[in-house]
């Protein structure tokens, strides 16, 4: 198959790879800042009503959260193995690993929807639709924040699934191979970021 033509504005392969890497890391710094706003909001409202947050997090099912964390960590591992096999030019194994990552991510979203169903059953809707009883009258703030943070994170998981499926298509068409594996490495970086955000979210929302 023909080797990919280097774009006219790059002088060498290494220059292109490094430029993409720096650009991706800048994008990751930006994503981290995006979630930082939510963490500050969480911290401020936890400071305002600590007992309510402690009580509210006991309402969440930490076992589902734990399984979700394990799923995301495994998916991070299979993603990295996918990149590893691409670098070694082993297309079949890459596809298997990427398929596993997508499967795990979908399981993550499925469990998330179970959790949401359980919350809705108790009447813990986000914001003004909240009609539940509780020992604290600020309970609706916790669930407002809970749905916002996990909702935005789930959105990023969805975007991640889309990206991985796109990369699987390119690996299948062999436009991404051991000579040019920049795209899969970038999607890998993005996926690890989504995993890191969940690593912080899990203890803050479920365990504290």
């Amino acid at each position: 198959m023909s080797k990919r033509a280097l774009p006219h504005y790059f002088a060498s392969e290494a220059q292109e790879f490094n430029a993409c890497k720096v650009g991706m890391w800048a994008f990751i710094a930006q994503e981290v800042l995006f979630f930082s706003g939510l963490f500050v909001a969480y911290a401020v409202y936890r400071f305002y009503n600590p007992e309510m947050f402690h009580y509210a997090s006991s309402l969440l099912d930490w076992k589902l959260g734990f399984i979700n964390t394990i799923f995301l960590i495994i998916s991070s591992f299979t993603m990295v193995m996918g990149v590893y096999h691409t670098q070694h030019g082993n297309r079949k194994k890459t596809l298997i690993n990427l398929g596993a990552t997508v499967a795990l991510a979908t399981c993550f979203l499925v469990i998330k929807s179970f959790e949401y169903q359980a919350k809705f059953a108790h009447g813990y809707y986000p914001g003004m639709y909240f009609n539940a009883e509780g020992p604290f009258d600020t309970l609706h703030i916790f669930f407002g924040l809970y749905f916002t943070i996990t909702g935005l994170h789930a959105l990023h998981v969805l975007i991640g699934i889309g990206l991985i499926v796109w990369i699987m298509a390119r690996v299948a068409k062999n436009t991404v191979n051991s000579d040019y594996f920049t795209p899969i490495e970038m999607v890998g970086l993005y996926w690890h970021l989504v995993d890191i955000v969940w690593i912080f979210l899990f203890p803050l929302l479920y365990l504290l």
Partner: protein
Amino acid sequence: MANHVVIPKIYYQGTFVALIILTVITVAVSRIDLGVLHTPVAILIALIKAGLVGAFFMGLRWERANLIFVFGAVMAIVLFFLFTFIDIEGRGAITDIVERPYNYKSPVTVTPMDSSGAPH
């Protein structure tokens, strides 16, 4: 800049196992009551896990130049936290009125809590 360093598999498997163990530890630690240390320990373990993912899965250990972005983002977040909490902590410092939110119309109907802390 390291170009095309291919990272041996062993690093990935090692990190993966470490992450699983740390997740189990996080849950275990949260079960026992550490009092005031409860939050810092949880955040510390999360930081270690994030560090592992960043160093090995994201290849920071071999491309240290990208650490500048991590450093920049972390510094911006720390400043954001720090100054917001200086304001919130300092409210009512000079004026003797403690300035905290109060008397808002909340959609929650408050049920009395019995002694064990669970609503009956």
